[in-house]
Structures are given as structure tokens and as C-alpha cells.
């Protein structure tokens, strides 16, 4: 009844090809954006930002990036943690080398550097396919983490081997370091998150996205109809790594502040982001957000109920969390292999016909 396209007439091509062609969708997104930018910053405190909102925004960016590669282009990658590490170390080197340049530009540059590294590690995808490629991307994961651990230049020869973000501000408001206000960190990440989502949405509905999807569905057939697999695959690796690099940079600089590479960007991070993409839904931008929200909220909820509510020991709760996350993934795959995004799509279909489904 509310959700329909009937009566929503388009009178120009620009209208017809806008990002959200259905009026209800458009207004809903405006409402969400206004709430995110103008309401939430006034309501939040330190706990909410650090436990829920920042990880959600940052993982969403990473999940969008990985979704472009896995969901749209069909190239399974297990190297996300390594690429996030590239973003983190790139932003660290830039921040310490050029302190006078704005951190905003540093984060974007870090994304660019990660894109370069991603294209490099994407090269084997032209020869290797399927599982072999998935395992091959693990080479990126292990090699990059090792590199940042062992080559002192990357962590500026600090004694502990850790990197910690120096204090930087944007438009006079501190963004990194101990002085950061919760709302400032939140807004900074939100800007990147919204920008990334918009770029990704428009890339995937345009020429580039169609080429990626053709490669995903069948690469040989795509090649025959004139898609250049070299350009399509490498551009997917590049764009995906760009987003992942930005998320890694924010993860280090804004969220954690200090990072030990093996701990923060290990293989588990790669799996976590991949889970977000799978649970959220392959090939869906909304799904990336849903998956990230799900996997960020689930541990917080579990911890609050088991440790806070029932008073069980923390290590037991941590083990149970593993069990529950694992079981949830399996249940999701069996019940809805296309993820939360598919549930959302079904709900929209139902809403369209409601209350007269026949």
C-alpha cells in the first residue's frame, strides 16, 4: 500500500535513472541519512560509539568492498585482513610523514595505495579460478601481515612493533588520538561510509558493474561477448581493495588508535568480513550493511546476556560465542543462502502487494 511504484511517473531520463527510482525508497534513505547525520550524534556516548557504531560503519565499508569482489565479480578472496593492514599502515606512514596534510586526504590516499596492492595480488586471478584463487589470496593475507611485522620501516622502527595513531584533527576537531569526542569519530567514519556506499551502488548499476556480473556468471561467455576479463577482474580487485583499504585505515586510525598487525588484521578478520558478506547477501550493497550490523551486534548481545545477565565466566562466554556464530552461519546458509538481503527483498515484494496479495 505504501510501498509501490504506481503513480510515480517519470518525465525525464534523469528521473528514470536515478539511484533510487522508487519514491518510497528515496524518502526512506533520506530519513535514514538525516537520522544518521543530525540525530544520532547528539544521542550517543562513548560506549555506543566504540562498541557498536564505529565497528559497524567500518566493517560496512570493508563488507561493501569485499562484496564488489565476491558478490559482483565472483572472485572469492580471503585476503581482506591483509588489505586492511595495507590501508592501516599506509595511513600510518602518511600521517607520520606528512603531518601538515589533512587526515581526510590521507585516508583516501591509503585507499589508493591498497587498490594498487590489490591489483597486484589480483593478477593471478586471470589464470586461477574458484577455490584455487581463494587459497591463492591467502598468500596475500600471510605475506602482507608478515611484511608489516618484520620490516621495521613500516612501523617507523618503534620498539614494540606496534603502530599508534598520532593526534590529528579535521576542520579543527580532533579525529584521532585520546582527545577525540565520540561524535567526531562517528561523523568522520559516517561520511566515508555513506560516500563508499553511494559510489559502490552507482558503480554496480553502471557499465563496470554489469561487466563484473558478466564475469561472475560465466567468465568465458563474458569474454566472448566482448568483456575484457583483464580489465574487469583487475578493476574489481582495485575498487574492492580501495574500499577495504579505507576501512583498514579508519579501523586503525579512528577506531583502535594502536594496532599490532598479527592480532588486528589476522586471518580471522578476513573470515569475519567474508561472513558479513555471506550472511548479508552476496551481490547487494544493503546486504553488506545488514551483515556487518548482524555480526557486530551479535557478540555484543551475547556478551551482555551471558556475562552481564547470567554472570558466567568470560572465557566460557567467548567459547559459546564461537559456537553460536558458527551455528548461525550454518543455519543461515541452510535457511536462506542468499542472506539477509534476500529476506529484505521478499519483504518488499510482500509490501508491494499488501494488503491485497491476489
Amino acid at each position, binding site marked *: 500500500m505504501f510501498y509501490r511504484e504506481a503513480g510515480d511517473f517519470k518525465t525525464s531520463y534523469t528521473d528514470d535513472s536515478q539511484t533510487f527510482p522508487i519514491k518510497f525508497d528515496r524518502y526512506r534513505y533520506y530519513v535514514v541519512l538525516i537520522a544518521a547525520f543530525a540525530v544520532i550524534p547528539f544521542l550517543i556516548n562513548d560506549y555506543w560509539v566504540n562498541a557498536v557504531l564505529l565497528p559497524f560503519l567500518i566493517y560496512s565499508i570493508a563488507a561493501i568492498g569485499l562484496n564488489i569482489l565476491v558478490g559482483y565479480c565472483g572472485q*572469492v578472496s580471503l585476503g581482506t585482513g591483509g588489505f586492511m593492514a595495507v590501508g592501516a599502515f599506509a595511513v600510518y606512514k602518511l600521517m607520520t610523514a606528512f603531518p601538515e596534510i589533512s587526515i581526510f586526504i590521507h585516508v583516501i590516499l591509503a585507499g589508493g595505495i591498497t587498490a594498487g596492492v590489490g591489483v597486484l595480488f589480483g593478477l*593471478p586471478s586471470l*589464470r*586461477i*579460478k*574458484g*577455490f*584455487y584463487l*581463494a*587459497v*591463492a589470496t*591467502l*598468500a596475500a593475507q*600471510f*605475506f602482507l*601481515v*608478515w611484511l608489516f*611485522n*618484520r*620490516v621495521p620501516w613500516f612501523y617507523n622502527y618503534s620498539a614494540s612493533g606496534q603502530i599508534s595513531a598520532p593526534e590529528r584533527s579535521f576542520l579543527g576537531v580532533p579525529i584521532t588520538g585520546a582527545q577525540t569526542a565520540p561524535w567526531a569519530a562517528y561523523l568522520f567514519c559516517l561520511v566515508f561510509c555513506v560516500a563508499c556506499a553511494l559510489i559502490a551502488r552507482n558503480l554496480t548499476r553502471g557499465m563496470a558493474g554489469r561487466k563484473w556480473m558478466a564475469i561472475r556468471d*560465466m567468465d*568465458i*561467455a563474458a569474454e*566472448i561477448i566482448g568483456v575484457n576479463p583483464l580489465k574487469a577482474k583487475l578493476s574489481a580487485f582495485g575498487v574492492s581493495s580501495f574500499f577495504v583499504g579505507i576501512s583498514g585505515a579508519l579501523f586503525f586510525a579512528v577506531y583502535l588508535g594502536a594496532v599490532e598487525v598479527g592480532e588486528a588484521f589476522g*586471518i580471522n578478520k578476513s*573470515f569475519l568480513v*567474508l*561472513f558479513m558478506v*555471506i550472511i548479508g547477501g552476496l551481490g547487494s550493497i544493503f546486504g553488506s550493511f545488514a551483515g556487518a550490523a548482524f555480526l557486530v551486534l551479535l557478540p555484543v548481545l551475547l556478551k551482555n546476556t551471558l556475562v552481564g545477565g*547470567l554472570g*558466567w*565466566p568470560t*572465557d*566460557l562466554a567467548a*567459547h*559459546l*560465542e*564461537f*559456537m*553460536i*556464530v*558458527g*551455528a*548461525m*552461519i*550454518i543455519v543461515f*546458509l*541452510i535457511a536462506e*543462502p542468499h542472506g539477509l538481503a534476500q529476506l529484505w527483498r521478499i519483504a518488499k515484494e510482500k509490501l508491494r502487494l499488501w494488503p491485497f496479495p491476489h
Partner: protein
Amino acid sequence: MPDQLLFGMEVVLNGLMAGVLYALVALGFVLIYKASGIFNYAQGVMALFAAMTLVGIMEGNVPFSHLINAVFGTQVHHFGWQVPGIAAVALTMIVMVALAWVVNQLIFRHLVNQAPIILFMATIGLAYFLEGFGDVMWGSDIKKLDVGLPQGLNTVIDDLTYGLFGYGFFIDNLDIVATVVAALLVGSLVVFAQYSKQGRAMRAVADDHQAALSVGVSLNFIWVMVWSLAGFVALVAGIMWGTKSGVQFSLSLIALKALPVLMLGGFTSIPGAIVGGLIIGVGEKLFEFSVGTMVGGATENWFAYVLALIFLVFRPQGLFGEKIIERV
């Protein structure tokens, strides 16, 4: 003979032994992949789980004691008996078969005809679940596993090489046992697959699910059997690795060691797993010995992957994998 060459030979020998252990894990992967097309990431965690169960049964620990204590406020830890090694291994094997049955009934029966990537993700979910389950069941502390396998320096080889070259090679007894066990395991698996009725049925299922079904092979039975076999291989690998370095979380990471072995050898080939394991074992030890010290060490973490990656660029299906034929 120059010292460097002797050291090098020792490194190669140790690499071969390590390679056998990698191959042992890789075997479990190949078995399941061949029979059901599932790339079982949980193999390493299965090895960890098997080793944990073995230790728990041997020491007579109460399963889920942490959980029981947390829920009911009791203080139970031990049954107060010790189970001898052989009996404990048999009991653990029963647990692994039960696990195989449950996994098949609850998960993979429902995922027939799904895309391989979905199946792969399901096994990652299984790995997470088993990891938490093992910790809840037996506790997450580092355990010592001792089923009576010989350990330490092999004096015969030490004396022999000292007599020949004037320098004694250090070879661990456990590695030699592992090599013998792995050879026996591979031999018996090949014989089983080639000559037994169930083995033939397994190969038939691997070839074509539907054709196998139509001539009366029970897919369910074969899958449970294959998962049990993989559980058995995991148990053997768990015993070897557990005796070597203690039963702890890092044991499950051997799965990550086995992946490049698989890539190198080809996902579908049992001999490939062995040869791949040997190449990787020798390669990474030699690389660490010759180059690793110059670039900061710990190259073992990634060398295998990069080697496999470079290798795959020239031969995308691995050494012994079936040729990939693609049609539009």
C-alpha cells in the same frame, strides 16, 4: 664435506618429515573433496577436536564441566579414572564417527546442490562451531598428549651420520613414526579405494552423484563414511601434532598449512597431497635456512602460499589435478 652442505642435508631431511605431517592433514581434505565436492575447511579443527577428545577421555575429564559448573554452581572436574591409550583412541574414533553422522544429517544433507562456495562457507561455520564446542567440552588450556609414541633424538641416525660425515643429524623419533604411519595410512586408503566394495562406491560417488545413485549406491552412507574416514585421518594427524607440540588452539591452524599443499598437488589427488606436502615441507625449511635469516625470519608463514601461487600461475590445476575443461 663442507658444513653448509651437511646442514642443508639435515634441513632437507627434517623438511621431508614435516612435509609428511602436512600431507597427513591434506589427505583429509582430498578425501572429502573427492567424494562430495565439499572443500572442508574444518579439517584442522577436526584434528584439534579429536586430539582434545582423546586427551579428555584418557585423563577422565568430565565433558562440559565448565558449563555445568557455571549453570548449576557445582565443582565437577574429573571422573577419577584414567583410560589406557588404545581404548581412548577407540572411544575417540566412535566420537568422530558420531560427529560425521551428525554433520551429514544436520548440515550437508540440507545443502545438496548448493554452489561450492556456500558449502565452503558452511564448513567454515562448522570450524567455528567445533572450535567453540571443543573448548566448552574440554576447556581451552594447553594439554599434554602422550599415547606412548617415542620422542626425542634418534640415536641410530645420529651415530650413523656421525660415523659417515663426522656430524650427527638431528632427527626426531616422532617424525619417523609419523612418516611410517602416514605411509601406512596412504597405502591402506589407496587399497581401500581401489579394491573394497565401499571404496568403489566412494569413487563412483566422486565421479558422478546421480549416476551413482541410479545404480543403487546410498549417497548418505557414503558421505557419512567419507566424513568418518576424514575424522580418522584427523585423529591420526591430531595425535601426531598433539604429541609434538601439545594440544592447543594453534593445532587447528595446520589446516592453513595444508591448503598450499593441496593447491600444489591438486585438490583431487591423493598422491598429489603426498608429493605436494613433501615439496612444501622441504621448500619452506630450505628457504628459511638459506634466505629467511636475511629477511627477518618466520618466512614459513607465507612461503608455502607464495610458492603454490607461483606454481599455479603455470599449472592452474596443480601437479596431479584433473585437467580443467571449460565450455560455454
